[in-house]
């Protein structure tokens, strides 16, 4: 029988570390997957996921089961992701300023030419496996170019399969705002993916009368 998260947290509050271990086992993969999708760095994602779990443990006394535990955990992870992304942006800006490069408003403008060259040149795609790898990398890079909230909400909906209501609680905005964020993110991705020539038609079967 599956013990509820809130019950495990209550046991954890009493100092039961095995309950905490059970929570970690239950959510570690989801957390690492989520943070990796957002920040696109697996090793750093593991560190941040550990930090998220330690924050849960640190604030276990203050935890009150008002909402779902899962959403609270995602909220902590989201805050850590936001901090990481902001720190990263700051560092990259410093680097560009040191190198004397002109910083453009959209980072996609800098990366896409090289990217397009790689994808359009067939010499770099010798077989299907490599093509698949390239495609995944391309998608990750395109997701990286999305604004923070669009990226967070898209990852939460696509990879974590959360509802718009849950995403709105985690991101801290209304459900209609989440709807709009996800729609805009998909529109941007659609345009970018068409631009760089990624086509997936296997799953798209429509019937037009």
């Amino acid at each position, binding site marked *: 029988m599956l013990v509820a998260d809130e019950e495990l947290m209550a046991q954890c509050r009493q100092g039961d570390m095995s309950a*905490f271990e059970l929570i970690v086992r239950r959510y570690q993969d989801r957390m690492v997957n989520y943070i990796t999708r957002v920040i696109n760095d697996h090793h750093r994602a593991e560190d941040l996921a550990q930090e998220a779990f330690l924050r849960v443990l640190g604030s276990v006394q203050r935890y009150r089961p008002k909402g779902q535990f899962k959403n609270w955990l995602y909220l902590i992870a989201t805050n850590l992701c936001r901090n990481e992304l902001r720190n990263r942006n700051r560092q990259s800006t410093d680097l560009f300023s040191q190198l004397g490069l002109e910083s453009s408003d959209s980072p996609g403008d800098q990366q896409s030419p090289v990217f397009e060259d790689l994808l359009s040149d067939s010499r770099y795609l010798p077989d299907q496996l490599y093509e698949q790898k390239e495609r995944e990398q391309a998608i990750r890079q395109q997701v990286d170019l999305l604004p923070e909230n669009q990226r967070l909400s898209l990852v939460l909906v696509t990879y974590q399969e959360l509802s718009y209501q849950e995403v709105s609680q985690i991101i801290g905005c209304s459900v209609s705002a989440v709807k709009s964020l996800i729609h805009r993110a998909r529109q941007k991705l*659609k345009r970018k993916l068409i631009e760089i020539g990624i086509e997936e038609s296997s799953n798209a079967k429509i019937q037009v009368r």
Partner: protein
Amino acid sequence: MQKSKSDRFTPTQMFCKEVKPQLSSYLDQELPKLEMGAVGCHLRNCSDCAFEMMQMRQVHSVLQRAQPVSASSTFLPRLMQKATALEPHRPIPLFQRGNHFPPTRSDSPTKSGVGRMSKYIRKNQSISRCFGWVEGKANRLLVVGLSIIFAAVLLMVRFYDQPTSMTPVFASRVQSQPSDLGLALSVITSPATYVYINPRQMSTVDSPIQPIQKQILPHPMLFRSKLSDQ
């Protein structure tokens, strides 16, 4: 005649402009049942919107094809090692503090008094560990109550000392309130009505005929230093 909400989403009345922003929600099945049906009907009749929907599905399927990332095998052992070091601190019930404060952990220093405390805080980098017992509800009340009592005693001492440097003009009041404490309490109740004389000016040798200077003071505490300077 006013249209009801259900009329608005019939396939004939739903336009492309209304449908296109809803496609993403339609894909995630986040629309209400009625709107899901209406958008579905529209997509079967409109090739433009159907093409748009197909592209949206492509984006979704491409995103979902990415390999799932899972935690490494060392994730849990490393985390539990850190978690054991962190150890959740619990509020200790009232009158059961025992040896928890000052702490009796194995790494607590052997010195006594302030040195012991400061060294412990320095070593553990966490003041909350030392003062964790304050987090208990009853303990917090105890601390607040003691602070209030301490503050009240401090104020009483201040006011008890206050009237000795001043002489009230109105003899009747002095007679009716002979004690300093009583005077202090009456000053608290009606501070602005009192007239005080600085006793130092009364004993001035240079000008013995100098009239007594009267001062109307709002509160004796506020002007104590000023009076002593004169």
